[in-house]
């Protein structure tokens, strides 16, 4: 098997992001090809607050991931989506991160995750 060409940053935490971003670049290039886009000015990703992805790591490894692809000059923008939950006890909606999972209305720590685990390729800006 051909080893994937990756550049180790020496930081274990970012290797995961790197391999995922390589996957993102591949998907976006495919999309661009299908849509007749030759130059991508900007790529917009959305990452949920509760996703295991660390936005900083993604930004750090983006240059490595696009190296040698048609996206070398593409800028990266990351939008953070809130990690919201609904309290199973009283039904209140609240931000899980800011409230550490504890319902600000009734104080119960038993919430269902409504959003925040996403990791989406939102859009590209082509020129």
């Amino acid at each position, binding site marked *: 098997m051909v080893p*994937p060409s990756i550049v*180790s940053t020496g930081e274990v935490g970012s*290797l*995961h992001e790197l391999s*995922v971003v390589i996957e*993102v670049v591949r*998907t976006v290039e495919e999309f661009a090809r299908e849509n007749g886009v030759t130059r991508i000015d900007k790529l917009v990703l959305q990452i949920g607050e509760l996703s295991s992805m660390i936005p900083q790591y993604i930004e750090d490894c983006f240059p490595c991931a696009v190296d040698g692809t048609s996206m070398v000059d593409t800028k990266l923008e990351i939008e953070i989506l809130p990690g919201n939950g609904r309290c199973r006890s009283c039904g209140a909606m609240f931000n899980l991160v800011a409230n550490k999972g504890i319902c600000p209305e009734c104080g119960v720590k038993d919430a269902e995750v409504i959003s925040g685990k996403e990791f989406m*390729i*939102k*859009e590209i800006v082509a020129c």
Partner: protein
Amino acid sequence: MDAFKVLEIKKSVYEGNDKRAGALRSGLKKDGVFLLNLMSSPGSGKTTTVMRTIEALRGDMRIGVLEADIDSDVDARTVAESGTRVIQLHSGGMCHLTADMTRQGLEGLGTEGLDLVILENIGNLICTAEVDVGAAKSAMILSVPEGDDKPLKYPMMFERVDVLLINKIDAISFFNFDMEAVRERVTAMNPGIKIIPISAKTGEGVAEWADWIRSAVRDWKRA
């Protein structure tokens, strides 16, 4: 200057891999090859368990091994010594395998005539759990020295696997390991999980594990 144009993609990043994993899974189903994804932290006993599993099942099915655990071929060589078909995946320091890498590995291994392929995944408890490799079933090993609080620290893996092997039970008296607490914690996260305490060293519990694989393969073939 050219006009800028926004093209909406709105696609989950995992979608591409999930699709490829699904395709791989149905291809394997058609060929009658049961792929088992075995995951754990480094040193929990994956290779030792794979060896024991081969021993226990060799008479019943033809087994192949995809070895992705480390970047040397020490593990693959250990397995090859048992006369089993094995291939070492060079994951180049990656922390998880994707469906594509797994497919390439299976092609390199050659699955014709095999009933069961065990994938010894990269030793990593965090991201291997998140990435679908196209396996029919997945199992993880928690070894006694890692502690009974591991399910609390890495819930994702425990939530997603079909089987939890608790390995190195021969050493349980040296550690403060509360088996019942683990059962409770893990079952609360994943009610359908099968928990099997084993010692890959002494062979204790391995028969139950082998039985689980036999019946999982049987049910999968029928479904």
